[in-house]
């Protein structure tokens, strides 16, 4: 397949990778269908809350794509990437909450006989936001909350910086494998515990709420707002997917797969393995942050429980079930498992009465998921994405008859592709 790549003029990246084109087409078709069926467009077959669910799912797909680059291609099993997702959510949530509270306070005070001073406005906003944690002072961390631009910048910079510092320490110390996974779990746990504190400045376990109300869009019904975010999420997923596909298909992809399979060998070829890991770690953290910033305005609320260690484990489970090492696998896994999960835990699945015991899916879903994870890992390491191979392989005519290798017992193509 790669034999033909070097000859002739270079075709655009997307044309050389039909799976990317196929994915973008499917995503566009999906977005259009949902839009037509949505309440905002009039048909109303898809409720506004379901549009939000779908939009959130697209964000989860995006973070799963990033996770796949990190784990499936570079071999780094981070169990902390949902922390970056959560940070992205907090960063945008601060502006959403501040700007909206400011509008409300301004409305209230406008009725007062004496025009309020800036200090009074600030105090009023502070007590509105921080009343729940018994404070009215703005913590330092909120210094830029009034600037949408700076908070958007924080969506990228804060996860990026945290990943840079954490990754630098971990990779420089040559922490790998399960130790690295544990370290990332510790990171996300520490962050969650910190945020749970009332004096963390981010409203403790209350988190940030009312994020679905977008300042300046007060006149728009939620049906429209939900659709806008759905589109934005689809666009972000499309861009993120193309970026990741471009990275993993080029020479960098070759190097990081080499690192995954034998990092010492890559070192002896002269590549500074730690820099590559750090680059991928930071890049994927930034993508996770952006995905989170799109997710939480659709969820409406973010609290520290969202970055509990289990969230990042779920992320790994999605990617494993979807199939590591192929980006569309991550998308399939995240969409399939997270939608199924909300169906089961939301009471959508009917309980099963066994006579002596009734299976309530709200309790048993996690067991089912855990079991599926183990089964997929053991018996179908290619995951759901592997199903695509069944289809493409049937269409592909055999490229030779008899033994594949140069001699008997040499690896067959299927083995070589693992």
């Amino acid at each position, binding site marked *: 397949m790669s*034999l033909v790549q070097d000859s002739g003029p270079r075709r655009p990246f997307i044309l050389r990778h039909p799976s990317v084109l196929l994915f973008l087409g499917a995503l566009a078709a999906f977005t259009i269908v949902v839009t037509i069926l949505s309440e905002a467009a009039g048909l109303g077959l898809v409720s506004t809350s379901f549009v939000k669910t779908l939009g959130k799912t697209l964000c989860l797909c995006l973070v799963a794509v990033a996770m796949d680059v990190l784990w499936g291609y570079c071999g780094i099993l981070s169990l902390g990437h949902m922390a970056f997702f959560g940070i992205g959510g907090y960063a945008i949530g601060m502006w959403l909450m501040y700007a909206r509270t400011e509008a409300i306070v301004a409305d209230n005070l406008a009725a007062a006989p004496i025009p309020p001073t800036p200090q009074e406005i600030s105090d009023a906003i502070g007590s509105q936001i921080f009343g729940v944690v018994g404070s009215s002072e703005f913590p330092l961390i909120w210094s830029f909350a009034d600037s949408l631009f700076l908070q958007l910048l924080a969506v990228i910079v804060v996860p990026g910086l945290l990943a840079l510092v954490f990754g630098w320490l971990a990779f420089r110390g040559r922490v790998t494998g399960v130790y690295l996974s544990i370290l990332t779990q510790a990171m996300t746990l520490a962050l969650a515990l910190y945020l749970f504190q009332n004096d963390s400045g981010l409203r403790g376990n209350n988190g940030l709420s009312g994020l679905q109300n977008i300042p300046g869009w007060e006149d728009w019904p939620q049906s429209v707002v939900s659709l806008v975010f759905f589109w934005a999420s689809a666009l972000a997923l499309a861009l993120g997917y193309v970026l990741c596909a471009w990275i993993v298909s080029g020479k960098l992809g070759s190097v990081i797969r080499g690192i995954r399979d034998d990092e010492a060998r890559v070192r002896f070829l002269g590549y500074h393995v730690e820099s590559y890991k750090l680059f991928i770690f930071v890049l994927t953290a930034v993508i996770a942050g952006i995905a989170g910033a799109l997710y939480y305005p659709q969820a409406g609320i973010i609290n520290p429980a969202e970055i509990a260690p289990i969230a990042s484990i779920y992320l790994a489970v999605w990617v494993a079930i979807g199939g590591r090492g192929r980006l569309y696998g991550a998308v399939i896994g995240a969409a399939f498992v997270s939608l199924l999960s909300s169906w089961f835990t939301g009471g959508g699945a009917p309980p099963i009465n066994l006579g002596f015991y009734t299976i309530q899916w709200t309790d048993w879903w996690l067991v089912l998921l855990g079991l599926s994870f183990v089964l997929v890992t053991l018996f179908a390491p290619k995951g759901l994405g592997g199903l695509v191979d069944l289809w493409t392989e049937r269409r592909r005519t055999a490229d030779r008859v008899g033994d594949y290798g140069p001699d008997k017992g040499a690896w067959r193509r299927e083995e070589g*592709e693992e």
Partner: protein
Amino acid sequence: MSTLLELSGVSVSFDGFRAINNLSFQIGEPEMRAIIGPNGAGKTTFMDIITGKTRPDAGSVLWGEKSVSLLRKSESAIAREGIGRKFQKPTVFEAQTVRENLAMALKNPRGPFDVLMHRKTPEGAARIEALAEEIGLTGQLGRIAGELSHGQKQWLEIGMLLAQAPRLLLVDEPAAGMTPAEREHTTDLLKRAAETRAVVVVEHDMEFVRRLECKVTVLHEGSVLAEGSLDHVTKNKDVIDVYLGR
């Protein structure tokens, strides 16, 4: 011929066991050198020290015209200095194609951003074709390396070594698992490389070493037992004892 690499007084112990014991060694550029010695003599460990995989407890490793010490450098920095290595057990990237393996080894800037922005060039493609020709893998460039036979993997690794265009090639048992014809081809490859570079070959097979027609260093219990032409060292009494004694 100027000295390219110089080890002096190098020692290394693993849990009290002295794998390398006060070893001194020099190689010039260009030069071909064969290293022989019984199993466990420390031949692979010697290469580990040069390439930065193992840090010695004592001694110095000096490189190049400016005699820079390699001891403080990372494995990747040492490789970028121009030291390439072929491992005893063939280690190629089995999940990737022959072309991808060679492209990764090809001498090019090694930073993440250089690699990210790397574009395939006609020169690069031609270089890969030429290497494939040299290692007998023409027409196999699109194959997954894991599908190759043992001997072909050995060659692919030699090809990757040449692709790096290093000044010093460290080649650990290149002929293992090769047919006599393949061995001969490998000797030719190495001899040609040694016309312009320094090449260190570790090999058990005396016939192979003889065909290299070069100076031989005999290692035993972590230090140099004898050095000179093959005929000279095989007449050495200590060497005979060591080889007959095993």
